[in-house]
């Protein structure tokens, strides 16, 4: 085989690798993508109970209740237009607080959001971007745009 032919072999191998990666990426995106919604959307639309979702908003003041087992926590996420009750079992992140932004990931079952992951990774000065956008959408955004 000539040099030109070997080049074709390399090109084929490269395209093969790219194709394999594209296949992996497409199936993975199909299977693993988690969509974010605000409480208003959760009220408006029906979601199958096996669909993994993210919901974000503010933790409603005085809504956090700890069950007697000490690990199960109930709280309410609000975008100040609608609310959704959330249950979570486990130690909450350090930055979780009433009145602060939060994102929960899990499943919506019978109107209650069963979270298996709660994220509050932002600092004091601003909130998760999804949460800020959800508040803007529901017309309850009070902060300045840049902060």
């Amino acid at each position, binding site marked *: 085989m000539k040099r030109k032919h070997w080049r074709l072999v390399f090109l084929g*191998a490269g395209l093969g690798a790219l194709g394999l990666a594209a296949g992996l990426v497409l199936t993975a*995106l199909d299977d*693993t993508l*988690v969509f974010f919604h605000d409480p208003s959307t959760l009220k408006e639309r029906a979601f199958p109970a096996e669909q993994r979702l993210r919901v974000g908003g503010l933790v409603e003041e005085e809504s956090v209740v700890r069950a007697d087992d000490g690990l199960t926590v109930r709280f309410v996420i609000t975008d100040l237009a609608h609310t959704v009750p959330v249950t979570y079992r486990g130690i909450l992140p350090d*930055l979780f607080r009433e009145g602060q932004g939060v994102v929960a990931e899990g499943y919506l079952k019978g109107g209650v959001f069963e979270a298996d992951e709660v994220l509050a990774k932002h600092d004091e000065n601003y909130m998760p971007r999804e949460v800020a956008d959800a508040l803007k959408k529901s017309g309850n955004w009070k902060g300045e745009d840049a*902060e």
Partner: protein
Amino acid sequence: MIAEIGHYALVLALAMTLVQAVAPPLGARLGDGALMALARPAAAAQFLFISAALACLMHAFVVSDFSVVTVADNSHSAKPLLYKFTGTWGNHEGSMLLWVWILAVYGALVAAFGRNLPPRFRAWVLAVQAFVGLGFLVFILATSNPFLRLDPAPFDGRDLNPLLQDPGLAFHPPLLYLGYVGLSTAFSFAVAALIEGRVNAAWARWVRPWTLLSWCALTAGIALGSWWAYYELGWGGYWFWDPVENASFMPWLMATALLHSSIVAEKRDSLKSWTVLLAILGFSLSLLGTFLVRSGVLTSVHSFASDPARGVYILVFLVVVIGGSLTLYAWRAPGMRAGGSFRPLSREGSLLANNLLLAVGCATVFIGTLYPLVLDALAGQKVSVGPPFFESTFVPLMIPLLLMMAAGPLMAWKRAGPGAVLPRLAVPLVCAAAVAAAVAARSGGPWGAVLGMALAGWVAAGVLTELAERIRLFRVPLGESARRLAGLPRAAWAMSIAHLGVAVLVVGTVGAGNWAGEREQVMRPGDSVALAGYDFQLLDIGDVPGPNYLARQGRVRVSDGGEEIALLLPERRHYPVQDTWTTEAAIHTTWLADLYVVVGEDAPGGGTAVRIHHNPLVPWIWIGALVMVAGGAVSLTDRRHRVGAPTRRRAVPATATATAGD
């Protein structure tokens, strides 16, 4: 006053980058040696001025000068001295200053150690370096000036995010920046080579030490960051595929590919334009990472502020640098003369496969990281791409890479016959099978873990086989083998060490990913919990004051078969200034596993939430990374890199030889 000096020093540094970006290329065009020679003193001066500015900012932090906005916003008088010091870069402005400082360090290093480079080439390299510095200095002075004053000065500061008050953070950003800003040198060398039309084996040899240095720092920086996340965030995990982690991981993948392709460019004068492209893409991904982290388009513990003006500026700069260099590449690369040809089954072929897999792996990380941003911008839909995506795309691509890792070094350059390669793979194959059988027998799976461990065994045995081949073990007398072993070039050692590091790292990730156990429950003093054969007893829980926090500390006795092996002191700290809590996990390591305890909040009915993790083999991850860095460091000491000058045998353009005595 000191802050004004810092500000002034930054402006002077800006002036120096202007000189350095304009004069040397002009000199190269006009053939004016004096103009070209300006690059070196300018690089040194730029480094000194930025160092002065950084020192001024550190001073402001250490003495708690709250009339400086950055200090007032991110420090507090009660903060321990170490964190006042490292808090210098624990904020947006300071970390950008650290960024350009490291860029200037590399510029000064190239100026100092690049004596052997042809003057025209060096002039271009330093000019490109200065152009990047110019962009970032303008960015700092215009949008993120760390020396802005606050009048009246507040009585005390707003404190540093407590999560960042940690020794791990003292070294994580500097190391990480040393890594990914260091890729700017490979970038500058690539652009200069494209402009000068000089991409050859000598070029590949010049770039290599700089790439190696950045790669070592980047590897160490990523490992340190992951270790910090592991013990500080309290989740028991070490890697979250967080966009900010990915932002440093993508340049690492490119730098790793670059290290391998530059071997082919150096030894075989082949894959040259690909190597140049990798050098450009590596630094482009560093810039992209900086954009993602600094513009606030992502929300994470790393992005300290979000300001649209900053994002837009970096984005424009990104487009200029990446777009410009890629255009230059598209224009000049086709003119490069193709070097030595090779067959798919050859050392070059295996290195090319390595590059292909690393590049494609990098592309999947890129897609996973940017897809949510693009979807949000185009469709207004918010999604998250989490670890499952990366586990089902990136991880499978690494399997053939590990398979190649044992086989590649056993192949001959140019062309290798299957008959010569396959018999040599017998030992690794037997080892992999033995490991698989042992793991399956001992743990019973899952099959992914068996496969992963077998791969680690395959890689390690491959490395040892290659070493044995080199010293002709058992084919010549042992004394002769030992003599050969002592005489092995540093590069051979470097490769073996780094590849063994990969095997160790694989063992760690496979163990952590498959056999980790976790228990979460409410415990009262005296309660015991069993996990993975260990017994965890909560002795008591009480308040312990710290310098600027109050800790709720539990005492947990860990025993194995009735015998106490550790007393763990997990804490939950309350920082009153920002009214935040942080979790301080307590970790006992047996080197084969970590026992990891976290305390949570008190339960209403009494007792405290306690989470216990058993993380098998996790320490191997950091050990593996350290071994890889050691391999890189050994390669850096190779004599080859010190003789930077092109050998006289090679035809050198007349202009370059005329001043080669410089």
